[in-house]
């Protein structure tokens, strides 16, 4: 029934020729996700996507915590757009949801207040003698994957189906606030029933879990975590979500935001340590994937190259359910072939 609304709100997503902007934090939290996205675009979909080594922060976290002034953010965003312009691209694809929100917001402000755009052009030129065009299309990579979800489905080796029961996997999807809550019309499905991840899950055989705290904050909420004294509040928000989804027994959580994926995953360890509580039946926790990891797994990419071993909640049980083969010995194998020391096991969250 909810699909009726989800499908009503679509947005324009460019078909090809993308300029990719990497995230500050995603390469640390989910080191294989961005590489997997580029691989999917280039190898599976034969699309043109440019990855510039000179890119830098969008100031997102600093901007939203009032550490970076608006004028500075506008100029930094303008420099990133100037890289896109220099390479002849018009379709901007920022990896991070907060970056997506920042770019969308800056462009909106420039449209509403042209004098700010003039000032930004002046500031950028004074700072580094660069010029820029505003992108014709800004889409989050989750938009792009959503856009090509059926094409990708044709190439997938696995589906979101429990091979032991034959039933669809139950998937909790969580959308980053900065994806659609700032500008609802910029998100597929808008803010109340975002469809960007739900569309992928349904197209790939899974079942979306609609639970009461579906729209609630993941727990990051910027100041809830970044201000150290507030971190208890951060954990309690994540706990509220996990408690709400627990009765539905989800097989995994997928998110399109670095902060959400991080906190929904890491706080499961914290809550297990604090309260000896996990939110699955067996005590292993609920795995949290990025959408690139979800797509990559179904395409048959190596789970360890995708970086699943970096997560707090380990994913072998999920891989077994889908039927994905993996080599446990390679779990901590470095790129140069060395076998790294396995991390210490937590006391209360089973691994």
């Amino acid at each position, binding site marked *: 029934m909810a699909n009726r609304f989800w499908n009503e709100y679509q947005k324009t997503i460019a078909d090809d020729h993308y300029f990719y902007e990497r995230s500050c934090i995603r390469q640390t939290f989910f080191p294989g996700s961005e590489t997997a996205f580029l691989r999917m675009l280039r190898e599976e979909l034969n699309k043109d996507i440019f990855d510039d080594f000179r890119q830098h922060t969008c100031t997102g976290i600093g901007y939203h915590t009032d550490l970076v002034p608006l004028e500075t953010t506008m100029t930094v965003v303008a420099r990133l757009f100037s890289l896109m312009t220099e390479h002849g691209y018009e379709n901007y694809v920022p990896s991070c949801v907060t970056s997506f929100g920042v770019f969308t917001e800056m462009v909106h402000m420039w449209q509403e207040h042209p004098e700010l755009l003039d000032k930004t052009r002046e500031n950028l030129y004074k700072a580094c003698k660069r010029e820029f065009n505003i992108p014709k299309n800004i889409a989050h990579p989750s938009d792009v994957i959503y856009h090509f979800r059926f094409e990708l489905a044709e190439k997938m080796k696995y589906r979101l189906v429990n091979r032991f029961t034959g039933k669809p996997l139950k998937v909790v999807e969580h959308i980053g606030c900065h994806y659609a809550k700032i500008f609802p019309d910029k998100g597929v499905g808008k803010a109340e*029933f975002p469809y960007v991840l739900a569309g992928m899950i349904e197209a790939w055989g899974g079942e979306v879990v609609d639970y009461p705290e579906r729209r609630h904050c993941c727990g990051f909420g910027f100041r809830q975590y970044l201000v150290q004294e507030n971190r208890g509040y951060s954990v309690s928000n994540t706990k509220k979500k996990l408690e709400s989804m627990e009765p539905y027994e989800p097989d995994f959580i997928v998110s399109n935001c670095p902060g959400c994926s991080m906190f929904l995953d890491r706080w499961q360890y914290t809550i297990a340590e604090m309260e000896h509580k996990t939110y699955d039946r067996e005590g292993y926790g609920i795995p949290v994937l990025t959408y690139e990891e979800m797509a990559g797994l179904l395409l048959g990419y190596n789970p360890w190259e995708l970086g699943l071993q970096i997560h707090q909640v380990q994913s072998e049980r999920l891989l077994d359910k889908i039927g994905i083969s993996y080599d446990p010995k390679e779990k901590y194998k470095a790129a140069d072939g060395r076998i790294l020391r396995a991390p210490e096991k937590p006391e209360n969250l089973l691994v």
Partner: protein
Amino acid sequence: MRKVAIIGAGPAGIEAASILARNGIQVSLFEKSETPLKNLQDKAFLFPNFQAAQEIVDDLSGKLLADGITSVFGVEITDVRWQGTEWKLTDIKGQTYVTDSVLIATGYQVFDAHRKEELGYGIYKGVITSLDMEQMIKHGKITNANGDEPKRVTFLQCVGSRDEKSGNHYCSKICCVTAVKQAIEVRKQLPKCDSSVFYMDLRMWGQGFEEMYRTAQEKYGVSFVRGRISEAAATFDGRVQLKSEDTLMGLPLKMTTDLLVLMVGMEPSCGTKLLGKSCDVNGDYGFIKTVNPHLYDNETSRPGLFAAGTCKRPMSISDSINDARSAALAIQEYLDSLKNEN
């Protein structure tokens, strides 16, 4: 004999037709539905005296039988134009009718609650509208999503009214008292069921309304919470979780209910919007604009074209009927003036 065309066979249209016919005017009453009084027939009891709506339906339907009224059902008038000496009406099939004067009484339609998607109407079975509740009350069977007797029923005011997001800034006027009426009915039919109303402010403007609000609290134990519900979601056991703020307590509030009743407001009907545009008398939000809300509230800027009832703005059934009587008088005076000119 002078002729008047009335578009819309609701309370206003029928009442005006009845008065005009009694005064010797030939009335053609057009209604796009196959039956008259469609909105009124959906209701169980009317505030503030809990009179059965069917009694009003029967009374008004009887008036349709009067000499001088020609009722045309199942015909939608899509265009109304002044032809220099008379008005020409065109229906959806292209058939035309001529008349000396026209009364627009095309009424309202309820706000489509699907548009407030955060409230989950059409998604969660436990979320219903005030129209759905009226039907349950009418049939004496108030049930939750599973068909069982609910333990808690929660009403939410101002759904699609006084709401910037839906584009309707105006008050729909009747929802406050309707929620009080329905909350009392729930307690009458299900004495063990909790009944509460979330409101911004309760506008008890009519005679007997304030007393009814007081009775709801004192006699029937209905609780009233000042706050808007920001989100509804289904729980694992099929109930509805609500999030709000109790603005009197200054505290966020989360509760679970068996039924969430959305008090949907009034919007101009499609016919009202269509004719308003066709005749160039459309006002705010698509309601029909009259010349002066104090002195000439049935006259439009087009001589011979009049409006009555909820096509002008939200109003109660009794106000619609009174407004129709006023419109009939204005039309009579207009027709008399034509007679004098001739």
